[in-house]
């Protein structure tokens, strides 16, 4: 009875084997070859950007990277973390600091050949300032009261009060073409096709885009900073392992944001791949809601710092490749970093002593309380990273040791964000950084508590408020340094935000690529001199 059946199965077997063989061999052939255009740089990324329109760019990928390839601002931030002229040639300000004059380059053309003039600058800033546009970075430029041109190569800015970060932040905004966007009403700008068909002054133009798969940029024929590399091809690969393989087998040239575990693996499996580590610009932090009864006591916050073994994390999870920062201003910002702040070496005995002295008595379950307030908190963390989860679990275990109870709660980013802004949280694990100027007004000024700003920890400190106010309007550099030194001292004494470890920053690239960025490519500044990158083999 089974014979007919088994026989038919038999007949299928040979062709099935042949098919499998063909696939495997075909695949092997595919992986062995790397016929690629030698003049194309293949860069890998884990997430794609959403839009090429810099007004509405929301991710690091499209906001920092694609925008850097396609657009320019009047200034740019160099490897020294200071602003330098880009579309501008020079700038100056009035003695009272409320008026700036900027001279523009005369040799610039948009990628469609139309000359760049002051008309574009005036148009751009007025568009950004118009509330109807919904410009995401509005908070940065809102103290500009008037922008107007004087001739085709000079622009004037009136600002409400002197601004020390004017050239850094305000002049750093990307400039948009008036002849392309001028006719669109501000509230329709978001729906224009500019996000898919951008026109800019940057070294590259967008050639093709398959969302969440591949973005190709080509040299801008009218570039005033013509790049040596003719094409950049970004490939989206969601997972770390696959990224590594593409780099190791030569089908890709660059991973700009390398995870620590990838770093370790690459050293082992592909020693010919070049690795570059950077002083990190981002710090993993733990943010505390100071409105919460237990957390409003500075003794508790300091005790949490003393009780947390951050070095064990840096050592165990990151192989000592990340620093354990003493301040929220990272050490790599040499110009502003103040090393003379209160330090918190791991000392659980000291933590317990502090808590005892402040009246937090240990209860029968090992958790401290005082006047009916228990030191029991909920820690919110974005789901999706086993490494961060493990970091937080270590933190929780350390806190339990000193008598503080913390429950971990994984949630998605939107919920996390919503709860942060509405103040419905105790503790949140996050990352901060990416800024090159110590002006942290939006995060720590007492008038910036949501919904007015981003001071989500509800921090209110008179001394820091004063420092922030003065630091912003003081144009003298030495005076600013002194002001922000003081701010750092106060911040690290009162700890609204606990720095944990620096965020690992490294890049892996093929030996045929030569570049000298000096700053991590995933920072807002990484691609600042992409026109100088070149192939050396």
């Amino acid at each position, binding site marked *: 009875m089974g014979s007919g059946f088994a026989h038919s199965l038999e007949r299928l077997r040979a062709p099935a084997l042949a098919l499998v063989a063909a696939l495997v061999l075909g695949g092997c052939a595919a992986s062995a070859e790397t016929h690629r255009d030698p003049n194309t740089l293949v860069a890998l990324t884990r997430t794609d950007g959403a839009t090429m329109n810099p007004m509405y760019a929301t991710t690091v990928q499209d906001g920092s990277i694609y925008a850097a390839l396609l657009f320019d601002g009047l200034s740019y931030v160099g490897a020294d973390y200071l602003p330098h002229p880009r579309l501008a040639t020079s700038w100056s300000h009035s003695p009272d600091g409320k008026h700036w004059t900027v001279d523009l380059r005369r040799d610039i053309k948009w990628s469609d050949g139309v000359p760049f003039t002051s008309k574009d600058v005036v148009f751009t800033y007025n568009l950004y300032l118009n509330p109807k546009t919904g410009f995401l970075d509005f908070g940065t430029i809102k103290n500009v009261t008037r922008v107007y041109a004087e001739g085709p190569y000079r622009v004037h800015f009136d600002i409400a009060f002197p601004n020390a970060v004017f050239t850094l932040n305000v002049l750093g905004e990307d400039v948009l073409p008036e002849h392309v966007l001028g006719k669109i009403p501000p509230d329709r700008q978001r729906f224009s096709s500019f996000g898919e068909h951008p026109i800019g002054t940057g070294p590259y133009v967008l050639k093709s885009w398959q969302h969440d798969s591949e973005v190709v940029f080509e040299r801008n024929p009218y570039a005033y900073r013509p790049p040596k590399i003719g094409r950049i091809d970004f490939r989206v690969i969601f997972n770390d392992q696959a990224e590594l393989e593409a780099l190791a087998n030569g089908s890709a040239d660059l991973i700009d944001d390398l995870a620590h575990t990838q770093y370790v693996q690459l050293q082992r499996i592909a020693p010919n791949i070049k690795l570059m580590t950077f002083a990190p610009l981002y710090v993993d932090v733990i943010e505390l809601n100071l409105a919460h009864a237990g957390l409003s006591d500075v003794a508790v916050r300091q005790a949490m710092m003393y009780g947390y073994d951050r070095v064990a994390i840096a050592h165990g999870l990151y192989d000592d490749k990340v620093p354990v920062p003493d301040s929220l201003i990272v050490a790599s910002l040499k110009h502003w970093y103040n090393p003379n702040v209160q330090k918190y070496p791991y000392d659980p005995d000291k933590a317990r002593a502090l808590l005892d002295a402040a009246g937090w008595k240990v209860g029968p379950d090992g958790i401290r309380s005082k006047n009916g307030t228990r030191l029991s908190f909920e820690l919110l963390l974005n789901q999706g990273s086993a490494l961060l989860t493990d970091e937080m679990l270590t933190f929780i275990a350390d806190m339990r040791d000193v008598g503080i109870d913390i429950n971990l*709660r994984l949630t*998605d980013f939107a919920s996390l964000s919503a709860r942060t802004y509405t103040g419905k949280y105790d503790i949140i694990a996050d990352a901060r950084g990416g800024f090159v100027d110590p002006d942290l007004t939006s995060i720590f000024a007492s008038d910036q508590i949501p919904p007015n700003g981003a001071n989500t920890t509800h921090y209110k400190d008179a001394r820091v408020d004063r420092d922030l106010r003065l630091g912003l309007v003081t144009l003298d550099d030495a005076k600013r340094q002194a002001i922000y030194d003081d701010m750092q001292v106060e911040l690290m004494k009162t700890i609204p935000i606990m720095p944990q470890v620096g965020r690992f920053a490294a890049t892996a690239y093929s030996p045929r690529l030569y570049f000298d960025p000096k700053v991590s490519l995933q920072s807002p500044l990484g691609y600042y001199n992409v026109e100088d990158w070149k192939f050396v083999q």
Partner: protein
Amino acid sequence: MRSFRRFLRERPAVIGSSFVLLLVLIAIFGPILDTTDPNVVVHSLIGFPQPPSAAHWFGTDLIGRDIFVRSLYGARVSLMVGAAAMVVSFTIGILYGAIAGASGGIVDNLMMRFVDAMLSFPTFFLLLIISALTNKFSLTIIILIIGLTSWPGLARLVRAEVLSLRERDFVEAARALGASPARLILRHLIPNALAPVVVAAAFAIGDNILAESSLSFFGLGVQPPSPSWGNMLQDALTPQAEAAPWMVLVPGLAIVITVLAFSVIADGIRVALDTSIGQETGDELDVEPAPYAAAPATAT
């Protein structure tokens, strides 16, 4: 009873039942006998998962926690969630399906369309919202979530059974022989209707264990540090997993073996009830693990 003896003759089913019994015993008594804290983080072992050894039978994970002890606690979670969620979904599903099947006509049509609606919802989104809205994320919530998203598939099954039962030959025969309605219901309808339900219940426990592991894997189920086989699998996505396969294999195999056990038990029950009720052909009670009817969380 005849069914029970028949069940005992199915060897895979017996092996499966023994395993489950063992698991239940371990889950209850294990943590009492071995009082190691499953959540203790060992600073010196952070980043260096230890392979299985005499000190750590299943090795340690990324932050130095003993995987064997965590697996014990994970067993508790899986068994509790598996069984309790099954009770929730079956209570709703049986009632719903029986009413729909018995009513027929428009009521049946409407009720089944509602079931279709339930199955169309992006379940993951529902889970996300529920998990984001609940402040205290307890095992009860997880049980409710899984139970409330898996009853539609069961309702469909029960309804189909009731519909086919109404037309069955033996019902006609019994009626023809003068059986009273009560006798019909008690001696014939209920045993026959219950049989596939019991089988489905055993499969459902396995499905629910899979569902909980998926939820926990995505961070929407059992919250760390509480161990669950699902959230222990999160470590599988870290590249350290390549060098420390026990982190990936232990929780995964635990799930596989447990679900396998419940599956063969279900199969055994099916065979046992089948031949004892006196169906002439058998296998008409075939009830299958039904990923297409279950919540999409267990689907691929």
